[in-house]
């Protein structure tokens, strides 16, 4: 009905689209579009153009902009068209302005008047068009102009208008919560609207409101539960059904709201259990939308107060997701697992989940892989941190997407900090992260690392700290020769070498200083690295002087210092001068300036600078202006930082009409630098070299005193991430114990591997191919999941005889493992029962009921389908083959089959459904084919033919 003959467009427009469609190159397309822009420019501004033609020009303009060209010259015409009386033109005008303009565009002010008028129109379609524009274009400043009318429209007789009015208010709330705060009760009222569409719309703003403050809406829990119940019981009109599910989109929104309301509230949660359980049971897990609801239910369950029954149902649903062939569902399964794992960690113990997770981790699909890393990140413990961080780093190295690289790098750092099993490992891991993503990670991370090396692990164990430092120094000396190290990493290296390079006496001062000079010379363009290097040099020389040793400055160091003395950067200059000054001092003075190993000492800072009071008093008495804090200097707000400017503007967001204040006379010359530095000396989280520049360079001793301490000052502002409690609880405090523990873990893992290989020998003949994949995966699973359950999901698929053999061997290894810390092997039949419990139910569930031949087939299937398959295994591959055939075929079948194509149907049971759909499509084929042929003929008449470039143009989207 919609596509009238010839697509209802003029020949000119069709020609334009045709010629663009046939373009061979981007340059050719650009030429055509530029010519079109010229035409439109003259035609749109010509006064003789008939109005109805204007409409088409505007649409052509939209097309031009869609292709990525600037059409701003025509915006004003779009605005003019909204003023038109003719509805056709008005709608086109509104469409154009909503597409052209952003809400902060200058032209908006010209539309407000029209919108106001149209909101009062008798024709509800005009009101709808205006409301659409309101949602897109009205900004904080213009909200008051339309707000009263929009509120009035909440009571409009047409449900379409009420719905849009609710959405418009929601938009206002998002824009400027303050402007509609007195109207929030209207959303509650609309919840009781007769029309389900309006009710559904009201859920959007309520969801936002509840996200912010759930407590204020606890009284609505009963209403939401009731609504959800009614929806689930199909009490809404049938037209809301979608793929046989009753109003699924409303269900999902309600589940989201319930999740918020029930979170951490036992009483509210209890009211929801029944309905959520009902919905989970009713979900049709063969359709996408059914799974969408199921997934939302899992999210809801994981946020409610825990209920064992629901958790069990959720775990079942998750395992269904994870077993699925569809990547979409596996992705959701992983996501759901990471949600549920927070409240019921034991779900990770299920062996089939573990293998599914590992499969996802090794999947070529990047999206799935990342989701899996997210899950791993959430379940990291001190027992599996090495494997997980190692995997993460490997993946980090392999990708080029800088956004994700940054994220995964900071996650690595976080995990390593929290759960590091040993110093060496930590330093190695950090080295890798910094080497490959150093410029991407937050500067905080680098400072955290320095802080960690300086402070050690926090326990009173100097030996461990020293060991940490020397291992850091050692690894840095090795790594620093490599080309292209990121700047942040070099800074850390320089700092550590400066502080601890000579501390353990292993390396001579000249060796370290030589290395530092190399770094500075290799990175001539990087002032920050050079600054770190020269400060490090200064530290090493002063330690040498303080220790009473003769300092011989290497010639290359000498030349470096001389170069710095003449540097363009004042910061570098100052550092170089300080270094020179120190070299000429005697040991006593140097020790005062640069005390050995003093990075962790606190320096008292008088933030109010009270010692200057007398001086300031005197200056004020002599007629100087008193100091006005930055925040009070209104005229200066432009210069002050971004945030305070924001604040300022939001408080007075109206236009300012008064003249600017006269500039204040300059403060007396001596006061400002000190005051400025006083604000700068406050500990800041990010390094700011301004502070160094601003420090008074006149008094050399105090200035250089601030030099080494400045790093510590910055670190003070850094959020303390080092998770001491988790760390100390996880591993013993001394490093020797650490080592023992690691060894033990290693042997444990070995023994696990051994038991696996033994088991493999027994069952070797029965599953040749499978063996080749499984040992690594089992091992990985064991190390990832802390070896909680060694019985993996494959076991059930091996024959009973095998599992009989396997059990004793693995029991032995378990016994050995249990005894491992004492190294006295207790070979008794008393094995930890929980481990057996895990493996047995799965065996009994599948093995006895299946005849051996079926199982052989199932095993062969495992090659393609890594999830444990029972008797249905053969069927499922056939299904998937059939499915792929079907989807190929269906591309050629033009159809109306809305519910038909479901590429994500994976369940073997879905076979019947597909057949039914297929036949339905066959039935539909007749008229549609005709229609398609007609369209084809029509198109050919116009001379638009599908070229080799775009063969799909005529293909029905739903085919």
């Amino acid at each position: 009905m919609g596509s009238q003959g010839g697509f209802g467009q003029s020949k000119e427009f069709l020609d334009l689209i045709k010629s663009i469609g046939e373009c061979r190159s981007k340059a050719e397309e650009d030429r055509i579009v530029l010519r079109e822009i010229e035409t439109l420019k003259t035609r749109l501004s010509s006064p003789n153009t008939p109005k109805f033609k204007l409409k088409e020009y505007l649409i052509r303009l939209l097309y031009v902009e869609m292709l990525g060209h600037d059409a701003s010259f025509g915006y004003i015409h779009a605005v003019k068209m909204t003023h038109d009386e003719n509805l056709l033109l008005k709608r086109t005008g509104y469409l154009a302005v909503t597409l052209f303009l952003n809400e902060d565009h200058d032209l908006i002010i010209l539309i407000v008047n029209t919108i106001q008028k149209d909101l009062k129109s008798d024709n509800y379609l005009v009101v709808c068009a205006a409301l659409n524009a309101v949602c897109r274009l009205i900004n904080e400043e213009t909200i008051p102009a339309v707000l009263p009318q929009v509120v009035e429209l909440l009571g409009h007789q047409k449900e379409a208008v009420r719905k849009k009015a609710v959405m418009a208010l929601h938009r206002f709330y998002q824009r400027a919560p303050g402007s509609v705060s007195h109207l929030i009760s209207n959303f509650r009222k609309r919840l009781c609207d007769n029309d389900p569409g309006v009710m559904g719309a009201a859920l959007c703003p309520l969801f936002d409101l509840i996200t912010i403050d759930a407590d204020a809406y606890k009284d609505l829990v009963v209403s939401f539960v009731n609504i959800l119940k009614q929806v689930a019981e199909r009490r809404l009109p049938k037209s809301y059904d979608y793929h046989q599910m009753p109003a699924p989109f409303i269900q999902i929104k309600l589940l989201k709201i319930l999740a918020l309301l029930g979170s951490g509230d036992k009483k509210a949660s209890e009211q929801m259990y029944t309905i959520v359980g009902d919905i989970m049971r009713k979900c049709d897990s063969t359709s996408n939308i059914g799974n969408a609801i199921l997934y939302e239910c899992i999210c809801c369950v994981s946020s409610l107060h825990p209920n064992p029954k629901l958790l069990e149902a959720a775990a079942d649903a998750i395992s269904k997701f994870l077993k699925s062939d569809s990547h979409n569902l596996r992705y959701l399964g992983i996501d759901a697992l990471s949600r549920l794992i927070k409240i019921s960690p034991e779900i990770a113990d299920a062996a089939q989940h573990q293998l599914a997770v590992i499969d996802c981790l090794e999947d070529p699909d990047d999206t799935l892989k990342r989701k899996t890393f997210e899950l791993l990140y959430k379940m990291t413990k001190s027992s599996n941190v090495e494997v997980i961080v190692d995997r993460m780093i490997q993946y980090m190295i392999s990708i080029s997407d800088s956004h994700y690289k940054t994220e995964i790098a900071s996650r690595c750092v976080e995990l390593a900090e929290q759960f590091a099993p040993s110093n060496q490992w930590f330093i190695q891991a950090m080295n890798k992260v910094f080497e490959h993503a150093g410029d991407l990670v937050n500067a905080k991370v680098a400072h955290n690392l320095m802080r960690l090396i300086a402070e050690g692990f926090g326990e009173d164990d100097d030996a461990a700290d020293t060991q940490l430092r020397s291992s850091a120094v050692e690894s840095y000396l090795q790594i620093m020769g490599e080309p292209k190290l990121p700047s942040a990493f070099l800074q850390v290296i320089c700092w550590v070498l400066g502080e601890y390079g000579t501390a353990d006496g292993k390396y001579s001062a000249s060796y370290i200083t030589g290395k530092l000079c190399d770094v500075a010379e290799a990175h001539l363009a990087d002032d920050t690295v050079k600054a770190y290097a020269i400060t490090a040099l200064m530290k090493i020389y002063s330690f040498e002087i303080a220790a009473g040793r003769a300092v011989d400055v290497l010639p290359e160091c000498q030349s470096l210092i001389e170069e710095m003395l003449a540097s363009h950067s004042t910061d570098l200059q100052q550092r170089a001068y300080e270094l020179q000054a120190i070299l000429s001092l005697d040991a006593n003075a140097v020790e005062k300036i640069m005390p050995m190993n003093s990075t962790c000492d606190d320096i008292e800072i008088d933030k109010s600078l009270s010692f200057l009071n007398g001086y300031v008093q005197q200056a004020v008495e002599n007629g100087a202006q008193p100091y006005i804090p930055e925040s009070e200097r209104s005229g200066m707000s432009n210069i002050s930082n971004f945030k305070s400017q924001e604040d300022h503007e939001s408080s007075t967001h109206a236009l300012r009409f008064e003249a600017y204040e006269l500039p204040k006379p300059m403060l007396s010359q001596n006061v400002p630098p000190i005051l400025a530095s006083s604000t700068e000396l406050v500990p800041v989280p990010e390094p700011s070299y301004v502070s160094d520049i601003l420090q008074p360079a006149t008094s050399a001793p105090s200035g250089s005193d601030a030099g080494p301490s400045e790093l510590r000052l910055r670190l003070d502002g850094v959020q303390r991430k080092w998770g001491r409690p988790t760390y100390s609880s996880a591993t013993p405090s001394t490093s020797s114990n650490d080592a023992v523990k690691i060894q033990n873990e290693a042997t444990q893992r070995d023994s696990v591997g051994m038991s696996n290989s033994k088991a493999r020998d027994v069952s070797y003949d029965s599953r040749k191919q499978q063996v080749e994949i499984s040992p690594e995966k089992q091992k990985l699973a064991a190390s990832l999941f802390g070896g909680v359950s060694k019985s993996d999901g494959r076991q059930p698929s091996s024959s009973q005889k095998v599992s009989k053999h396997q059990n004793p061997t693995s029991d032995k290894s378990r016994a050995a493992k249990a005894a491992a810390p004492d190294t006295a092997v207790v070979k008794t039949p008393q094995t930890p029962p929980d481990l057996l419990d895990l493996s047995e139910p799965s065996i009994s569930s599948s093995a006895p009921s299946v005849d051996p031949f079926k199982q052989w087939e199932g095993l062969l299937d495992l090659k393609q389908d890594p999830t444990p398959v029972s008797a249905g295994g053969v069927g499922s591959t056939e299904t998937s083959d059939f499915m792929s055939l079907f989807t190929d075929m269906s591309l050629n079948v033009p159809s109306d089959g809305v519910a038909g194509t479901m590429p994500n149907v994976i369940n073997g049971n879905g076979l019947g459904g597909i057949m039914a759909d297929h036949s339905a499509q066959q039935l539909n084929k007749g008229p549609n084919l005709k229609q398609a042929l007609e369209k084809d003929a029509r198109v050919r008449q116009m001379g638009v033919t599908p070229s080799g470039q775009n063969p799909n143009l005529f293909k029905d989207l739903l085919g």
Partner: protein
Amino acid sequence: MIHFVLLISRQGKVRLTKWYSPYSMKERSKVIRELSGIILNRGPKLCKFVEWRGYKVVYRRYAGLYICMCVDHDDNELEILEIIHHYVVILDHYFGSVCELDLIFNFHKAYYILDEILIAGELQESNKKTVERLIDAQDLLEEVAEEDASSVNHIIAQASKNK
């Protein structure tokens, strides 16, 4: 919340864009370039979600056309997939077995329909019938307006002839 909707052909040609969050022209073309690079190169069996700049992009392929929606990180991906399908079903009903060419020539109609389904980045109507009824009413009104306009033009033409 849905931040934007993109319709891209297999050749990377843009068929429709709708932005619900503010993006400058420059950002827009950058986003389109980036995403079409990612999405068009994904294999058919991979999942239909892409994590991108802290958002998630959900896409679905129909013949030679990719429909993508960019959503927040905590949105339900399968639901978005079905919203896309919901849109296509309505397009299909409106155009009568819709094909890419319908959308090229009548992209403004596709916009009108999208405006009845999504508003301000949220799903406003999940009832197919309601959307179709509204669109029909609008079309009817436009036809009347068009007739009026042409008759007015006719009168004007007549009048100017008579002069």
